[in-house]
């Protein structure tokens, strides 16, 4: 069952840069200590990564600069060969694929968006988007037709004949997105696609991205080092440090139950109300009868409903997807989340 569902599966993947990486890895017997490798002139990019991504899921990879996010992505797209470990794409072993199979895979199943857009400077918007199709051997007419559709999809209509240098950053990234989608890939890689954009445009592009994902429903690996972005987009988040995946879990779990000290520090400053859903603070329906008239969904993020709940002196019932009441929230709990432990005491007093 899980084999059928998992589109990407990593099994103890290592990537170590340096001359004698393979040999050192063999000697290390799977226990890689970054410092030791560094001394021998090797850099650890990815250290024993094992995880699965299911169909239609969006996994966001997070971490500080140099933590190996891009390297992990490049291993999974086989832009670099992993030093050790296995990677399966829809059950097929990526690491043992021939060049030909790999090219087939990329031409039909994968799309990638890059941080610095990576558009071809000598091609127009339309030609850039049509490029993967032309590479595949589609006729110019078909490719251009499809590219025009993609231009409409990302909202660049009217700029088809512009060159990348004539576009703003946000527009260039739209081209990048359109190009990666032109071949209708099943798997979509995005490596910090919005980090070169200013905050306003970034927000706009995130909305756009969510809209597209709503329509397309792809399996996505998304790299970012912006926690807000991760929270907005992710089904699950993987946090990396020095090549090791410290924790891979839902946003709420990562914030509430950090697996390691590093993750705790990392998530310390994250506003809980932005992460947590009502589900996580609701209590079972007790013997209380005096409910408020307000109803909230169990999947609502606390931040979005906090004001209404706080304004209500009574407990607010929580509904699930079928509109059944599954619990209640008290304003005290919400205050707790909003202002931390100390404020609880005050409100109690």
């Amino acid at each position, binding site marked *: 069952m899980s084999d059928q569902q998992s589109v990407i599966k990593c099994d103890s993947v290592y990537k170590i840069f340096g001359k004698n990486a393979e040999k050192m890895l063999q000697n290390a017997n799977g226990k890689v200590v970054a410092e030791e490798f560094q001394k021998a002139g090797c850099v650890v990019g990815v250290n024993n990564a094992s995880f699965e991504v299911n169909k239609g899921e969006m996994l966001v990879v997070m971490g500080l600069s140099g933590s190996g996010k891009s390297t992990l992505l*490049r291993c999974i797209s086989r832009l670099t060969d992993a030093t050790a470990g296995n990677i399966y794409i829809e059950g097929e072993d990526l690491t043992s694929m021939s060049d030909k199979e790999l*090219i087939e895979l*990329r031409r039909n199943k994968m799309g990638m968006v890059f941080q610095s857009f*990576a558009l071809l400077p000598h091609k127009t918007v339309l030609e850039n988007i049509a490029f993967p199709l032309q590479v595949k051997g589609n006729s110019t007419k078909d490719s251009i037709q499809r590219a025009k559709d993609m231009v409409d999809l990302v909202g660049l209509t009217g700029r088809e*004949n512009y060159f990348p240098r004539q576009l703003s950053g946000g527009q260039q990234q739209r081209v990048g997105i359109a190009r990666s989608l032109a071949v209708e890939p099943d798997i979509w890689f995005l490596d910090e696609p919005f980090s070169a954009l200013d905050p306003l445009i970034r927000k706009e592009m995130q909305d756009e991205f969510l809209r597209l994902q709503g329509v397309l429903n792809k399996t996505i690996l998304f790299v970012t080092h912006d926690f807000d972005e991760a929270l907005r987009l992710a089904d699950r988040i993987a946090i990396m440090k020095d090549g090791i995946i410290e924790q891979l879990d839902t946003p709420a779990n990562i914030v509430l139950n950090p697996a390691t000290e590093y993750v705790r520090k990392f998530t310390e400053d994250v506003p809980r109300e932005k992460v947590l859903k009502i589900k996580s603070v609701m209590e079972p329906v007790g013997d209380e009868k005096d409910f408020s008239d307000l109803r909230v969904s169990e999947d609502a993020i606390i931040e979005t409903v906090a004001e209404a709940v706080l304004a209500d002196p009574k407990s607010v019932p929580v509904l699930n997807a079928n509109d059944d009441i599954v619990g209640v929230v008290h304003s005290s709990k919400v205050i707790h989340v909003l202002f931390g432990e100390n404020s609880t005491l005050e409100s109690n007093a």
Partner: protein
Amino acid sequence: MSFINYLSERPKLTQLGIVLIVFFILMSMTGLYHDLIVERHLFAKSVVKGEIQSSVGFAESMSMILNWQLPPQLVRIPELTFYHPVINTSATYVLIALLVTAGLLYKSFAESVNKSQWLRVNWFQIISKGFVGIIVGLLFIPTLYNWFFGEVTRSTFWEIPMMLQDFSQYLIFEFWQTPVYDPEIEDYEDYGRVRLFTRAIGATLLFLINLVRELLIGGFETVVSLANVFSDQSGWDWLNENKDKWYSSVPAIPWTVLTAGAFILGYKLQGVGLSILAGFGCIYLAVFGQWEPAMQTLSFVLVAAPVSVLFGVIWGVLAYKSRTVERVITPLLLVAQTFPHFAYLVPIIVFFGIGDHAGAVATIIFATPPMIRLTLLGLKRVSPEVLDAGRMSGCHNYQLMFKVLIPTARRDILIGVNQVIMQCLAMAVIASFIGAMGLGFNLLLALNQLRVGQALELGVCIVLIAVVLDKLSLAWANKQTDYFADLSFVERNKTALLFVAVFFAALLFAWFGNWMFADTAKGINYFYLIPHNKGITTEPFWQAGVDYMVSNWRADIKIFNKWLLVEVLMPMKASYLAMPAIATFVLTMGVGYIIGGIRSAIVVGSFMLFIALTPWWERALITMYMLTFAVIVSVFIGTIVGAICVQNKRATKFILLVCDTFQTFPSFIYLIPVIMLFGVTDTSVLIAVIVYAVIPPTRYTVEGLRNVPESLLDAADMSGATKLQRMFKIEFPLAFPHIMLGVNQCVVFALFMVIIGAFIGTEDLGQEIMQQLFSGGNIGSGLMLGFCVAFIGLAVDHLIQTWATKRRKLLGID
């Protein structure tokens, strides 16, 4: 005390001081040999006559030094032999060579992490280290030994030219022979395959050039020239047999047709501006009566340039793909950058003979290296993300190279194409030395007759062709397709149709010329071709200008010239020649050490040693003296002009334009007025050199100052700096590394011109090369001389590059 403190804070300054002091001390110690070291053969002669000793023993050397007298072997590097007569047979040197090699290799082996992979990973290093070891052990150590303790004997180094010559002769005539049927003697004869091969290349090039040329100016003789490449007679025979058929009198394309074509092509590729440039360029060529030689040159360029571009891209791509190719090619490119053109010509004559094809070969050899360098540079600069994007789009290797890498690197590659075109036309004159026809050849004639006006017009023709070709190729590369227009056949092909229409119209027009001009006395159809003596000319005007200058300024100039020669140049030259060899080494290697540590000292020292060991040390010193003078003056003028012009936007634009024009302008032209004013003296050569070499420092100063970050300038203004303070405290220091690269280019340019100065009459390396060229050519001497010049350039290049890199790192630029 404070002085000592000052120095101790500046170790480099102290080092420089020490080097200079030692240098001057050594300079003053020539004593006994002062008059002999100006010419090597004087020194050798005195040795032979027994007047002086070539070298003295250690104890005696010491006592001589204590008496303020350098021992002879330090004053003049004697003519060395690599094998000391006494221990020659004892295989000591082979042993030394092996020991050095083994030492180097052991060091590399001990340092490697993975011993079992060592051979596979380091094979290139191993070979090169082995090579270094053998050279050092077999050549340099015995050389040094001999230098101090040996006898003056004929140097093996001096034999190298002859050896190379013999080798090339062997290669051409005797190596790997094959019988070839010779129709003359009706028998088979043995030919060397190498010669057959070079001949085949030459014939192919000649065929291509003639094909284009006959289309442009020859007419039906094309067929003949085609046929003649492969056998000597059949073409002419055939033509004679078919003399009265209509097609045998089909003429070449009239200039009117070509000009109309140029207008259309320019319009099609870019627009009105280019159309006008291309069209009027053609009109200029025709109206000034230079159509025929211009087309000869054009045919030559149209063959040489594409071949150079093709080779350049191919080798650039190979170097990008393979580390090994890159490592082999890089030093070759460096040498090619400073190798004098004339030195190329000698081997080319030997291998390819004389004629248009030889000129083309020379041009290709000369124009390809910049193309390789720029292709490689461009490919390396493609961002890794774009490469990844290409791979993720599913490109296979071929698509990745031709659809992603090369187009993305296009900016640099196009600069390369521009360079190639410029080089091809710059070579037009030099190639005419070995038989290339066209503008260059005519220019050379005009120069010989001291006809300034004509030379100038020819020069403008060359620049025009260069500019038009450059712009056309650029526009062609930048063309884009419109996918939206749903066009009918006529609309889509309107330019082609227009071209066909204009072609026939102009053809008719030219044909009508037959009647129009039939009445005039000479019966020349001006619409078909304007012969070179029938065009308009501005020659009298220029001639009058020169005459005016000569008659009015000559007296003053003579005084200035005399002063310069007597007070500056002669003493400078004399002091260069009076340098004892050891002093030269101390100075150059010392500066090398200060700039780049031991490594640079060794690099520079090796270059110098090579020159010192050849028979041309004095000549090299003269070259260096002219180089130094020209570079100092050029840099002085260039930086000042650049700094002034950069203050004003329009002046900046103007000066850059001037730089561009002067760079393509055939450098020979500068020589005429200069000779007329200054006569055949070093002054003439130096002025010509300075006019040419002043371009790079000007350009780099402008660029460097313009690129100083805006924010820093604002910061300076905010802290209340005056304009001058800002200039000297902020702008110049920051732009300095870039300006130094300009100085580097200045040296390359100056070296190029100093060598060409041999044309006027110098006594330096260039003259020697020129003589090799005209005396039929000894390949070995030609090449060795070439390397001497190249090594001077490379030594300077190495020092400046090392310095600029360090400096830029320090300033945190790029």
